[in-house]
């Protein structure tokens, strides 16, 4: 229990660092931050937009830096991220609320599926070392090295643009209105197949390679030999003795890699014009929409931190030693 509390404390610290970086960054830019930002917008901007940026930077509030910091934190806690300058006058939080569910559904599901599939394949590859799975290794390494969005481009080109097997992008069919009816949901699911497929293919390779290596090392341990000596059925030796122990470093690796997987998937959404955070990010970067960009950064960071906490919980559930071990 203390382990979980310590991890929670760590994540709170990390979240605080992210928030503070967000707060101080515009102030570190030499010169008046607001002026510098405004200078990026050619032509005139409505005074309301000016105020929006001031509010985001906390400059609009009178008072010392500390006071601004405090009100900034207060804003974040109330999920008030300011007003988007590119989609003025929409609130950033509204924009986020529209796009987060899409990304969560796609990236969340695909990542978990990829992890389970990759781990299972890795267990088999580690046990049946030298089998036909080994010959796939170079191909798997190639898949692991491909940027997510490039594979998306390839797959789209091959399967959607040329052959029309899959839809060429978007979150759902044109003309449909989002709602909880079956035609919309089925269309949404169909449109998410190719993006999900892309994520799964690229990340399965990584998980499988990692699990295979860990399994090979674990199979060399004494307790696996002891399990064999006990005359236990092979299934039990491989899964309860070898795989269960190999799972621990694999889960830790999962936690570490989550940031990269999520980032890659979000960029991949751009290729599909998928109505998730990725597209929002592209637009906000291209139009220098600072409130939105910073808010997206915070949201992604918090999501990854939360996912890491969940992974820690799983590790504690699986590894009896973690309950007494100190935080890394």
């Amino acid at each position, binding site marked *: 229990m203390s382990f979980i509390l310590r991890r929670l404390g760590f994540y709170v610290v990390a979240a605080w660092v992210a928030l503070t970086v967000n707060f101080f*960054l515009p102030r570190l*830019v030499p010169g008046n931050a607001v002026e510098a930002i405004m200078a990026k917008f050619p032509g005139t901007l409505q005074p309301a937009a000016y105020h929006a940026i001031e509010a985001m930077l906390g400059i609009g509030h009178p008072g010392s830096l500390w006071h601004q910091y405090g009100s900034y934190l207060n804003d974040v806690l109330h999920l008030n991220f300011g007003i988007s300058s590119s989609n003025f006058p929409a609130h950033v939080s509204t924009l986020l609320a529209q796009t987060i569910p899409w990304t969560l559904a796609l990236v969340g599901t695909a990542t978990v599926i990829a992890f389970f599939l990759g781990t299972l394949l890795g267990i088999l590859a580690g046990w049946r070392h030298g089998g036909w799975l080994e010959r796939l290794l170079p191909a798997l390494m190639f898949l692991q090295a491909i940027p997510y969005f490039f594979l998306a481009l390839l797959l789209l080109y091959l399967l959607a643009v040329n052959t029309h097997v899959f839809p060429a992008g978007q979150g759902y069919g044109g003309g449909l209105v989002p709602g909880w009816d079956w035609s919309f949901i089925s269309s949404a699911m169909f449109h998410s197949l190719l993006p999900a497929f892309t994520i799964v293919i690229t990340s399965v390779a990584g998980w499988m390679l990692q699990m295979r290596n860990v399994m090979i090392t674990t199979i060399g341990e004494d307790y696996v030999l002891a399990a064999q000596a006990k005359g236990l059925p092979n299934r039990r030796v491989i899964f309860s003795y070898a795989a269960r122990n190999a799972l621990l470093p694999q889960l830790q690796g999962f936690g570490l890699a989550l940031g990269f997987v999520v980032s890659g998937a979000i960029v991949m959404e751009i290729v599909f014009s998928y109505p998730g955070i990725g597209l929002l990010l592209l637009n906000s970067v291209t139009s220098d929409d600072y409130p939105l960009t910073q808010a997206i950064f915070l949201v992604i960071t918090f999501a990854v931190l939360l996912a890491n906490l969940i992974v820690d919980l799983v590790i504690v559930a699986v590894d009896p030693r973690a309950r007494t071990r100190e935080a890394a």
Partner: protein
Amino acid sequence: MTTALPINVELPTLPGAPARQLGRWGRLPLKAKAGVILLGFFVLAAIIGPLVAPYAPGYQNPNPALSMNAPSAAHLLGTTQSGQDVLSQVLSGIRLTLELALLVGVIATALSVIVGVAAAFLGGIWDDLLSLLINVFLVIPALPLLIVLLGYLPHTGQTATILVLAGLGWPWGARVIRAQTLSIRNRDFIAASRESGERGWRIIAFEIVPNEVSLIAANFVNTVLYAIGASVALAFIGVTNLSSWSLGTILYWAESQQALQLGAWWWFVPPGLAVALIGTSLVLLNTGIDELGNPRLKDANQRARVNGRRLLPTDPTPVLNAALPTRQRTPVVAFMHSFSRSAYVSDRAQRRLSAPKPSEGQQ
């Protein structure tokens, strides 16, 4: 515990047995060799590429007929929307991307070694603080933070990108090196050095770091991988400077000019493929280094075959004079298997053995 005898591969050969004197290159695992060769090809392309490129990457051929052309004799990789030669762009891009990635790798690895060793060596409150710093920057996702950081910089040229990437790329290596240094630090030969009065930094430089070379090498390769991936992604989103021709920038323009929808595969496939192949060569290299360092991974490759038959770790120790037990196969699978190479090999191996004694109770 299978007490494996110290099998030292460096021994002279048996009299009469074919000599297998492998040089240092020959003893590298196949994966590492493939990785080095592939990487070497791209390094070569980076060095001489822009010199042999037929056109300047940004040169826009004003002839409208040459816009968005498929590969032809004049343009080996086709042209872009504005008549630029894709091949020249890709060659220039390889050089830029590799330059950037290598520089980031060097800086970040140096930083991670310094921080990692310092944290392990200083111990106490310093170690706690540095570890916290490392862990925080490990857990915060890199790409969004990079986007935010680069967004606020007044100009985002190559130098700025390198520095920012390096600034976020060192924590991973620092953590690994710190862990390794901690375990080495507690070993006896370090205590012996200390007792004999060696000064701290000398111990670090001459005793500890040499023991971590393969770790540092793997760390360097991983950092380069990260740098390539991150820089390409950043360029693709349009965060970094769009006036320099890196591989990611080419992809940005391809995407924004709808190359995909217009079917201009020659525009986005070559740069993406280049990124993927460079990445693959690095992963191969890394796996090779892994196998060098982890004897179990290497041994597993060698152990897997005895008498032409692949053995699972849960199979019992094979007995040479007994007839090799066949796996239980359904008739169809057995028929198909009889055509495979492994069936042929094991038949040959069986015939090559001395005539087996009549075995009792087999199967």
